[in-house]
């Protein structure tokens, strides 16, 4: 086994230029992919904190008597995906409005009668905050006889979710493309190394070396490339991350911009992916190279 490692390292040293290029390529790809993951992890955080704030306002018909309220509330409470239901009387609504319009309260002062309806503010469970679910729930609430209208940040939410999904999709596609590109590049490097050693491999075969004996150093080489590339890529991302958070920290310390780094689990996943890429590239190359064999 030590022999195999020695051979693999010798191979890497013998083909330094090729290996450096390959490792740089892997590092850059890992950097880009992990930067994307970092973006999505944080964007997801922000999304879910927004989603937590998403609520439906159900306006009651004006002729609803106060005694019917608990029953309506109970019905809404029982719907799937509802977290909390809060009654906001028209007086309460007016008070809030006035508060929001502080300084312009003269506009409201002239009102003789409170034009606002009574309403329920319905907070949703985070899990049911997708735009389709909210829409369904709103429609369901609106269908209740005592409800005049159910309102939510419809357009805005829909569009935002769509854009985010598009982003996410593009992200996946990019990760896929990078994956294929890197596998291809590793495969190519290994293939060039194989070509440069074809004579040697042929002789090894003739003196009775098994395929396993011949292939193992190449696999180790691929795995080392993947591992080093992964480490460099993630280290670079970490440096960039530190620089960004230091800068952002100076501009605003508010917790809207609470950016977090990738979790150890995700980091491990990316590392494993990187190593897997090294292995796969090797596998493809060796598979091809076996085809040239006549016996």
């Amino acid at each position, binding site marked *: 086994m030590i022999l195999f490692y020695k051979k693999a390292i010798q191979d890497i040293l013998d083909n330094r230029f090729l290996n450096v290029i390959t490792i740089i390529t892997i590092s850059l790809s890992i950097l880009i992919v992990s930067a994307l993951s970092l973006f999505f992890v944080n964007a997801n955080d922000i999304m879910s904190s927004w989603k937590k704030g998403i609520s439906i306002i159900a306006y009651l018909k004006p002729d609803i008597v106060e005694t019917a309220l608990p029953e309506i509330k109970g019905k809404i409470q029982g719907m799937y995906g509802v977290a909390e239901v809060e009654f906001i009387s028209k007086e309460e609504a007016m008070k809030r409005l006035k508060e929001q319009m502080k300084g312009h309260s003269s506009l409201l002062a002239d009102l003789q009668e409170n034009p606002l309806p009574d309403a329920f503010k319905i907070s949703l469970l985070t899990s049911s905050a997708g735009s389709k679910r909210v829409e369904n729930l709103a429609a369901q609430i609106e269908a209740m006889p005592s409800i005049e209208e159910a309102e939510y940040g419809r357009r805005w939410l829909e569009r935002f979710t769509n854009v985010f999904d598009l982003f996410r999709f593009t992200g996946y596609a990019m990760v896929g493309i990078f994956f294929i590109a890197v596998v291809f590049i590793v495969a190519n490097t290994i293939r060039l190394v194989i070509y440069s050693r074809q004579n040697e491999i042929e*002789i090894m075969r003739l003196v009775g070396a098994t395929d396993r004996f011949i292939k193992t150093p190449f696999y180790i080489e691929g795995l080392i490339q993947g591992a080093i590339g992964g480490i460099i890529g993630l280290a670079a991302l970490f440096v960039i991350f530190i620089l960004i958070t230091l800068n952002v920290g100076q501009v605003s310390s508010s917790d809207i911009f609470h950016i977090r780094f990738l979790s150890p689990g995700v980091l491990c996943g990316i590392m494993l992916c990187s190593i897997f890429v090294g292995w796969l590239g090797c596998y493809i190359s060796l598979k091809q190279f076996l085809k040239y064999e006549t016996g």
Partner: protein
Amino acid sequence: MIDGNDKSSIIRMFHVHKQYGVKKALIDINLDVFKNEFLFITGPSGAGKSTLLKLLYYGEPVSEGQILIDGMNVFRISCSRIPFLRRKFGIIFQDYKLIPTKSVFDNVALVLEAIGRKRQLIRKKVNSVLRMVGMEERSKSFPQSLSGGEQQRVAVARAIVGVPKIILADEPTGSLDSESANIIVDLLKGFHARGGTVIVATHDKELLRTTDNRIIHLKEGQQIK
């Protein structure tokens, strides 16, 4: 018809044909090689001497016929068994086939590394074999810096280091002066004296004239009596 357990035969060839595309390189070869035999195969250039040796270690697949090597059926061998077939042989190639990027020592050691021997044992064995062929002092040299005769001695060392049952030597004296040639022949005789089987393909007249071993003559792919 073919008995792999025959006490005295280590190689049996039975109606063997070999074709390269349309070119018939060997036609209906029937040959038994006995254990501890020293056999010569000769014939003009292109007669099929190298081809015959290649069929034995599956350097080329057989087109037709049966070959049994020490109980292994070469015609029906699976890919994964080929390395084990080849370990029965020590092969000395017409063009030496040393690895130019490896030292003399590493070239010889490769055979033992491939079969998973321990490093200490490898060092001991390789050094003793290099001493036997008189190349001990050059063990750190690279093949290019050696003369043809020296390279051939390294090739012999590599062929015998794994203690094979059979040595196949393709023109072992082909491009050597008579002194170097004698060294090689003596090494092969030494291997034979220790109980090994040797097959030498050659058209070295001198070599054939001075031997009383069996000689197989090939011409245009056919065995001539």
